[in-house]
């Protein structure tokens, strides 16, 4: 009997897991809350996606800038959010370095409770500015190209000219 149960458990564990089988795919931090029954939420306010406490989308159609139904804008948002995550990782490392230097021991609660002083906050603001310049360097590239008067086909023209010289 127990063997059968064990085999069943194995079979369950090995079977593909569907998202719908999970109680809630969101991290706990986003789904806690003494939620109002959906019937109590006004119709004329933003409504959170299932499983979320607060809505992610403000009322009002989001503008689309690239004639592609918002696809590029969504990618831009992902890149922007990803950059924020990379930055927060970097800050975490900086904090760890400070704490390691101070105590020689790393306590995760100490990291969460760490608050930089005014001077260090200023230094971090400056560092965040440099970091952002690096990630969004493409704007300077586009701006320089505009000022240089480069057209979209200028480079192709060089290649064409070289071929013509054959």
């Amino acid at each position, binding site marked *: 009997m127990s063997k059968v149960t064990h085999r069943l458990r194995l079979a369950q564990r090995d079977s593909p897991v569907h998202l719908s089988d999970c109680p809630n795919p969101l991290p706990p*931090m*986003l789904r*806690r*809350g*003494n*939620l*109002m029954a959906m019937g109590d*939420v*006004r119709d*004329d*306010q*933003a409504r*959170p996606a299932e499983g979320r*406490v*607060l*809505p*992610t*989308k*403000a*009322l*009002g159609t*989001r*503008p689309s*800038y*690239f004639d592609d139904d918002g696809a*590029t*804008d969504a990618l*831009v*948002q992902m890149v*922007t*959010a990803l*950059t*924020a995550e990379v*930055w*927060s990782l970097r*800050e*975490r490392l900086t*904090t760890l370095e400070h704490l390691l230097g101070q105590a020689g021991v790393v306590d995760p609660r100490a*990291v*969460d*409770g*760490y*608050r930089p002083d*005014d001077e260090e*906050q200023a230094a*971090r603001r400056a560092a*965040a*500015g440099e*970091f*952002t*310049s690096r990630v*969004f360097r*493409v*704007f*300077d590239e*586009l*701006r320089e190209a*505009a*000022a240089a*008067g480069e057209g979209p086909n200028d480079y192709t023209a060089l290649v064409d000219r070289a071929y013509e010289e054959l």
Partner: protein
Amino acid sequence: MSQYVHPMLPDEEHDDLARERFVQALKGHIATRVSPGVRDVFEHRARPRWIDDHGSEPADRHQIRQALQPETYYRLWSSVRRSSQHLLWASVGESIARQVDELAARAQAMDQGLGSLRVDPDLEIPWYNAQVDIHVMPGGYRGEYVEGDVAAGALYDRGVYVYATGQMGALNDDYGQSVVNNFLAPRFPDFAPRRVLDVGCTVGHCTLPYVDAFPDAEVHGIDLGAPVLRYGHARAEALGRAVHFSQQNAEATDFPDGHFDLIVSHIVVHEMPPAALRNMLAECHRLLAPGGLMVHADFPGYAGVDPLTQAMIDWDTHNNNEPFWGPMRDMDLSAASVAAGFDADHVDEVVVPTGRILQTGRHAQTGNLWLLTAQRT
């Protein structure tokens, strides 16, 4: 300088603060390094192409916007700017979603009977708030998601501080302080209002300076959103300031005629469409006692501003859920005040300094606060 940690301010952890710092760095980078490039792209590409296509200069800010729209630089700039606004609310909102129940409970415990709170679940939300969440804040000023919700207030209080990179002061009260100290104190040194009304007060951040400036006055704040008022009430109580908050539409309040000696608002005028603005001005006229003052603090109109700068400022109208930003700046609000009943000789538009830095695409400049003022005769 950091935000003053009053008892209602949401708790944030290391990574929340790091993400917020990134949002500030990104917005600062866009304003100082990327936005100026839009002017270059206009000059070198969009303007010459427009002239080629149309045989004339772009005539106004609307044509400048149309000329810029095909430009990849303009599109990417717009897309990143819009994403930075989403990231702002996402970064601040994550910690608030984590403690939404605790904040509601904290707000309830904060009441020490100094002021009061009156919410109206049956208040009809006008179209200009029901159809759009201003400046892309999910849920707006009035979304309610748990019992006794104050999340919108917490999101606004912390979000404004992060958005303004602290330039509105440790209590986000710079605009209220600017009206009190840079306008009322020098121009009306003996002014002693019996009752003060702050219209569209949200969390009361600009209301509290009036409690300090006029300790004998009864200070009121009204707003369309219940959760921002709940938070504002708790915040004022926690800070030991007596304010009477009520959920009302500024176009038609339930206060009696001549009830107030001073009616103020802070960056609310640009969040209202013209017809509602005209109603609000008429309501101010009704509510003011003879000799009473109306002071609406906002940003100046477009009259006299070059069209490219107008187009840069006007980005928010079309791209940042600020639909009334452009229409308001095209209005003659002095004339609207006269039409609302104020004596033309007692209506004025005044500019006072603030510490705010504006996103015009030019390099950082010290901000000015534009005031629409009128005295009831």
